[in-house]
């Protein structure tokens, strides 16, 4: 085993290393150079034909997640329309690195298009860039990667569109005046905070002058915590007229609490939810309307974007346009983003048309 001379040697080596780096500068955050992905050099040809038999692979955050099952089904529909070959692969756990080996596999199989929702914006970067160098077109949807690592990002809905829709739905329901609260996920969730900020800005508008945002509660995207936070909100603010919960976990938990309480039908609840989670609460009158993008359309658009890339109709530059089947024409925005459109609003009238 290690005797004292070894130990002294080890300590000495470590000390020397520390000293060397302390004096020598070394690789620090300040000195680091920018990493770059492959640059697009091709020129877009809007009239290019989508080749037959294009191999399109969907790699969701994880398999057996109802949201992605619906999104991928939308992708399959699109791939069928342009005569390609569809497949869906993915990890059973939504961890940051689990997608990397799937990307490598797809690249090894020479797939033409990889459509993915990233579990981590950076962990998949190296693998995606390798796949792009090997000739694959990469589309991200739902959750983007670093823009350096993909050709196009299909955004489910603009943040502004979500904020506008949720504030409008609430205002309609409470008659334009009263106290409202927001039930969010975690205090540092990027999406949530962006939406909350935009909702606050939206509420400053003249037409919403009668609405007062009293507090923001955090349910941590945990069903039970969200349930308790809803309970707490109504205890702290007995005059609360409405709650906006821009998270599927939060809005379902809040609906469950309201549904079993004296506030059912009294407090207006809206937010981002899935039809399957919210169906019973729409039926029992707890919730009148809520919003979400349609994941099937999201996958459908992502597949068309991938085909347009592979065909050379677009390269990911702002201003390029492409046809996306039944959804019509789309334009690539800044940073290679394509926005699906305003969120779909679900009410008692249309909820039975959706199953996800």
């Amino acid at each position, binding site marked *: 085993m290690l005797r004292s001379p070894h130990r002294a040697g080890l300590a000495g080596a470590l000390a020397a290393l520390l000293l060397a780096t302390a004096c020598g500068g070394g690789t620090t955050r300040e000195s680091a150079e920018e990493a770059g992905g492959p640059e697009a050099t091709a020129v877009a040809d809007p009239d290019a034909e989508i080749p037959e038999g294009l191999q399109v692979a969907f790699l969701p955050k994880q398999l057996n997640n109802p949201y992605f099952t619906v999104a991928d089904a939308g992708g399959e529909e699109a791939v069928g329309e342009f005569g390609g070959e569809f497949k869906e692969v993915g990890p059973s756990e939504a*961890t940051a690195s689990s997608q990397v080996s799937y990307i490598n596999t797809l690249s090894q199989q020479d797939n033409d298009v990889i459509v993915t929702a990233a579990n981590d914006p*950076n*962990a998949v970067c190296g693998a995606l860039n390798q796949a792009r160098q090997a000739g694959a077109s990469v589309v991200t949807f739902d959750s983007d990667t670093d823009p350096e690592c993909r050709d196009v990002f299909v955004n489910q809905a603009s943040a502004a569109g979500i904020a506008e829709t949720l504030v409008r739905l609430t205002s309609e329901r409470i008659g334009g005046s009263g106290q409202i609260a927001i039930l969010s996920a975690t205090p540092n969730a990027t999406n949530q905070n962006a939406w909350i900020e935009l909702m606050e800005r939206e509420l400053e508008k003249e037409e919403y002058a009668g609405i007062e945002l009293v507090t923001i509660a955090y349910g941590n995207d945990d069903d039970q915590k969200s349930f308790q936070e809803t309970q707490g909100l109504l205890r702290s603010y007995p005059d609360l007229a409405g709650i906006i919960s821009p998270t599927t976990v939060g809005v379902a938990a809040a609906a469950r609490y309201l549904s079993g309480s004296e506030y059912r039908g009294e407090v207006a609840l809206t937010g981002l939810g899935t039809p399957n989670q919210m169906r019973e609460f729409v039926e029992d009158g707890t919730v009148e309307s809520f919003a979400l993008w349609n994941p099937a359309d999201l996958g459908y658009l992502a597949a068309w974007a991938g085909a347009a890339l592979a065909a050379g109709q677009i390269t990911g530059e702002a201003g390029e346009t492409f046809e996306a089947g039944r959804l019509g024409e789309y334009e690539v925005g800044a940073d290679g983003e394509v926005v699906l459109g305003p969120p779909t609003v679900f009410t008692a009238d249309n909820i039975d048309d959706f199953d996800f």
Partner: protein
Amino acid sequence: MTEPHVSARPAPPPGPARRPALLAGVPARRETSVAGALLVSVLAASLLVDGFATGRNAGFLILDVAAVALIALPMTLVIVTGEIDLSVASTLGLTSAVLGRLWLAGLALELIVPLCLLLGALLGLMNGLLVTVARLPSLAVTIGTMALYRGLAYVVLGDRAVADFPFSWTGGAVAALPGTPVPWVALLIAGLAAAFGVLLHATAFGRSLFAIGSNADAAAFAGIPVLRAKLWLFVATGAMAALAGVFWTMQYGSARADNATGLELSVVAAVLLGGVSIFGGVGALPGVLAGVLLLGTIRNALQLADVPSDTLTVVTGLLLIVSVVVPNLLARAREHRRRRRSAPAGPG
């Protein structure tokens, strides 16, 4: 010190004692069969799966198993002594989180990396002290520190990711040896595997680990410093998990508190598949390397063949059960025959 007693467990097979000293403690059968299984699966995959037998894919495969391989080396020694360390993936995560934090603070990577390795050794030391000084079972200790270290990782970095590492490091981590598709990390693993292999199979210290794993009380009675040996093994495991953490962070270019969640199970699976007995006292390092590669090959080949991930998990689980159950049944059958031939040697 408790009075030495005769273990109810069967003594290790008498075979190794008659073989050359260099091979002492290397039971022949298990690792040969793992190596055979590896060979068969590589051949089968090369023939049946499109895109498997290419240099590029071999590179992907090695990178996929690199972190598991690094941690499996010291884990082999730990399990040979009859202990286990389930905190390794959390040590990896905490190392990754600390790496990210220090990078944000503006330290140089050349300084951060040795600090991270030191941190890993200290985390391992804590496990070791709890096992050897507080005399707690390592299973309980490391289930505790598994949660503790992962929790600390979230304290350090929260649920955000640090990812602005320079490409010279992130690209460098996955770079191949010049002129080959083989990632350089394969050389690192081979070098460390040789070091751990020599330590386990060709030194007095290594032989003492088998004695400890077969019967710790008897080993202590024979003058082997049981606790000190175990302490050092936990320190080494912590340091290697930290090394894997540094590599993981650069490989994926992302320092996160939740990095490698659940990896401890892959490591233990590979070690057991490699022929190391979970009860201690039996095992060989080459077998473990074959086990790591076998799991990697099966996963890689099935993925290339578009087998769904659920099926893949089921296959891996079954393989592991078979690899643990079959030798156990064989050993029991041998024991049964031996007892029928001669009168029982000890109580129980």
